[in-house]
């Protein structure tokens, strides 16, 4: 049981490049989330999904896109990377929303230069 896995662990992008951050969970969780963590700013929700085919915006969705074609996978797409997107990105999953524990992946550290 690997839990939540994220790839890559580290990435450096040039301004204007695009990339996809991968997230996979093997716990058959319906709910999945993408957060970004900036120093001293806590965890900001980018997008979330309550099941395959259903996604919704979080607090800071601009510059990002997501898709959820399967229960297991929830990729995050960055189009036209900007320095403001330099951050650590975490994917999380839970069996349902509200009171259920969120299980986090190890994170992807992204730098945009």
């Amino acid at each position, binding site marked *: 049981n690997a839990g939540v896995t994220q790839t890559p662990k580290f990435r450096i992008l040039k301004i204007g490049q695009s990339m996809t951050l991968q997230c996979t969970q093997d716990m058959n969780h319906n709910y999945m989330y993408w957060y970004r963590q900036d120093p001293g700013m806590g965890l900001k929700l980018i997008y979330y999904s309550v099941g395959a085919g259903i996604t919704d915006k979080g607090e800071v969705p601009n510059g990002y896109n997501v898709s959820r074609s399967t229960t297991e996978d929830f990729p995050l797409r960055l189009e036209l990377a900007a320095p403001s997107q330099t951050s650590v990105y975490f994917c999380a999953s839970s069996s349902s929303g509200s009171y259920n524990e*969120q299980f986090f992946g190890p994170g992807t550290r992204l730098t945009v230069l």
Partner: protein
Amino acid sequence: QQQVKQSPQSLIVQKGGIPIINCAYENTAFDYFPWYQQFPGKGPALLIAIRPDVSEKKEGRFTISFNKSAKQFSLHIMDSQPGDSATYFCAATHFGNEKLTFGTGTRLTIIP
């Protein structure tokens, strides 16, 4: 109204001391308050959580105190150890809400 305010931003405590991290919220609909612990280079992990029907919850050396009238809750770590050095996030949500609202985090350092 969705904000959760957390303080202090950082905290240094001697081994054996009792660090206290405070959080305050405004949304009276919040009815579930978890704390997450994050070690360097790792994702956050659930540490302990409380519902507002109790004023205190203990799990090992970790205690949450909850003051519903003041809309505040806090994390206490008894007999703190260097291995407790981590970033701690409080959070809040309510039934039917698919999301957690996180505080800004407290970086705790326990010195030997």
